[in-house]
C-alpha cells in the first residue's frame, strides 16, 4: 500500500467516527513504518477536517464530530511513544471563546468551541452574555493565545471592537490573536476593528486558528 493510500485509509477511518476502525488503521500505518507525526497530520487530522466539512454540509452531526474527535484521540495515544518528546500531548494553543455581553445566542459559538477542541486546541468556553472584562480576565488566567468573540446581532457586534480596545489598554493586544464570528460579522468588519481573523463557520474557524497559532 502506498503512503497516500494509507493516509486516505486513516482519514476515512476518522470519518467513520468509530474508535475501533481508527485504532486498526493506526496500527496498520505503524506496521507500514509511517512516522507518527505523518500519521497524525496527513491521516487523522485530514480526516478530522473532512468531518468538519461534512458537519457544515449537514451530512454529519455534532455527536459524530465528538465521536470522531474521541476516536482520533485514541489513535493519537497509540502513537505517543513514537512521537518526538516535546510533541507529546501538546495542545495546539489555548483559546478563550465566548459570546459578548448583551447577546444570549450561543448555539453557533458552542459549535465553534467543540470543533476547536476536537481539532486539538485547549478551549475555555466562557459562555454567553459575557461581561467584556471577563474575556480579559480569562485570557490572563489561562495565558491564552487567542480569543474568540461571537456576536449574533448587529446591536452587539460593537462588543467585539470593545474587547480589542480593552486588550490594547491592558497592553495585551500583541500577545493575543482575536478571532471574530457570528452571522452579522464579516471580513470587512474584522478588518475595520482590527481583528486578526474572521471565520464564517466552525470548520473555517479551525482552519483560521491553525493558520494563526500552529
Amino acid at each position: 500500500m502506498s503512503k497516500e493510500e494509507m493516509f486516505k485509509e486513516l482519514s476515512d477511518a476518522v470519518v467513520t467516527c468509530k474508535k475501533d476502525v481508527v485504532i486498526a488503521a493506526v496500527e496498520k500505518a505503524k506496521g507500514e513504518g509511517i512516522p507518527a507525526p505523518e500519521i497524525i497530520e496527513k491521516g487523522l487530522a485530514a480526516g478530522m477536517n473532512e468531518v468538519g466539512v461534512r458537519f457544515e454540509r449537514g451530512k454529519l452531526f455534532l455527536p459524530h464530530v465528538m465521536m470522531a474527535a474521541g476516536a482520533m484521540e485514541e489513535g493519537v495515544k497509540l502513537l505517543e511513544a513514537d512521537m518526538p518528546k516535546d510533541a507529546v500531548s501538546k495542545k495546539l494553543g489555548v483559546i478563550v471563546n465566548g459570546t459578548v455581553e448583551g447577546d444570549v445566542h450561543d448555539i453557533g459559538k458552542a459549535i465553534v468551541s467543540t470543533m476547536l477542541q476536537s481539532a486539538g486546541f485547549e478551549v475555555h468556553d466562557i459562555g454567553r452574555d459575557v461581561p467584556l472584562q471577563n474575556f480579559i480576565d480569562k485570557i490572563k488566567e489561562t495565558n491564552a493565545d487567542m480569543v474568540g468573540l461571537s456576536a449574533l446581532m448587529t446591536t452587539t457586534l460593537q462588543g467585539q471592537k470593545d474587547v480589542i480596545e480593552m486588550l490594547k489598554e491592558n497592553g495585551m493586544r500583541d500577545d493575543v490573536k482575536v478571532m471574530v464570528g457570528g452571522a452579522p460579522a464579516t471580513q470587512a468588519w474584522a478588518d475595520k476593528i482590527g481583528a486578526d481573523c474572521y471565520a464564517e463557520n466552525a470548520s473555517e474557524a479551525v482552519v483560521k486558528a491553525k493558520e494563526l497559532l500552529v
Partner: protein
Amino acid sequence: MTTEYKLRMGDGKRIFMTKEQIVADLKEGMADAADLGSIPDLSADEIDKLVDIITMPSRMVGVEQGMEVPVTHDIGTIRIDGDQGNSGVGIPSSRLVGAMMHERAFGADTMELGHIDYSYKPAKPVIAQEMQTMEICQQNMIVPLLYGAMPNMGLYYTPDGPFENPGDLMKAFKIDEARQSMEHSAEHLTRDIVWIMQKMMASGSDGVNFDTIGAAGDGDMYASLHAIEALRKQFPDIYIEAGMAGELMLGMHGELEYDGTTLAGLWPHEQAPLVAKAGANVFGPVVNTNTSKSAAWNLGRAVTFIKAAVEASTLPCHVNMGMGVGGIPMLETPTIDAVSRASKAMVEIAGVDGI
C-alpha cells in the same frame, strides 16, 4: 462605460455591480443551494427574471397585479412598542394597538399575539395575562389571530432549565448523556407548548404559530412536531403555522426521527413533508443570508432553496422574509429596495403562497 446597478451586500452595505457580475453571483448562489440540497438549478428564464428584478430602476418594486399573496406577521404585536433592540420602532403602545395597527393600517392578513419574552416556556408563569390579552384582541379584530412563540428548547438546559446542558456534556465526550438531556427537554417542551395552547384556545385563539422551529437543533424540531401532532388531535380545527429557524436542521442529537425520517441534516424541501405529516396548515421555510456575499448571491441561493421547498410541500409555504433571512440583508431595519426585490422574487419565481 458599462452600466452599474445599485445593490446591497448581505450586511446591508451599498455596492455597485455590472449585469455580468450580478449574473455570475446569482448563478454562484444558486449552485451553492443546488449542491447543498441536491436540488435542481433555476432555469435560464428564471435567472433572467431574477436579473430583471434586481436591476429594476425603481427603489421599491412590487409583485405583478393578480400575484398578491397573504402576509402574516410573527411578533408584530410588539413590533410597534419594542425599540430597535427588539427589532421594532419604539412607539409606546399596547399589544392590542400593535395588532390592530397591523390589521387595519398595514394590511396584515393574519396576526400573532406574542409575549415580550418570546418563547413558550416563559409564557407559562404569565398565562393569565396572555389569555386576557388574547380575548381582548379577538373582541377587536377580524383577521385570524394566532398565539405565537419560539419553541427555544435551549431554555430547558442549565443554566436556564432543569436538564444538564448538552453542549457541556458533549464537550466532555458524554454523548449518551447529552442525548438523554435533549430527549428529556424535548418531552417537557412538547408538554409546555400543548398546555399553553390549551389555555390560549380556551381564550378564543384561532391557532398557533411555531416561530423558529429547530433553533436548538433537531431536538427542538422533534418536540415541535410532536406538539403539532398533539394539538391537531385535540383541536381538529386549530390553525397551525410551522416556521423554521434556519435552512439546515442542525444535528445536535443526530438520531432523532419523525415518521421514520432522521431530522438532523434536513434542508427546507425535506422539512416540508414532515411538517405536513404532523398536521400543520402552513409551512414557513427559511434560508439564511450570508452577510459576506452580495444580494444577488443571496437571492439566487434563497430562491433556489425555496422553490424546491414549495414544490415538495403539500402545504402552502409562507417563506420567512426579514432581517437576515430570505435573501434580505441583516440590518435592524432592512432597506426597502432589498426587501421588496427579495419578496417579489419569492412570489414570482419561487412560487410561495405567502410571506
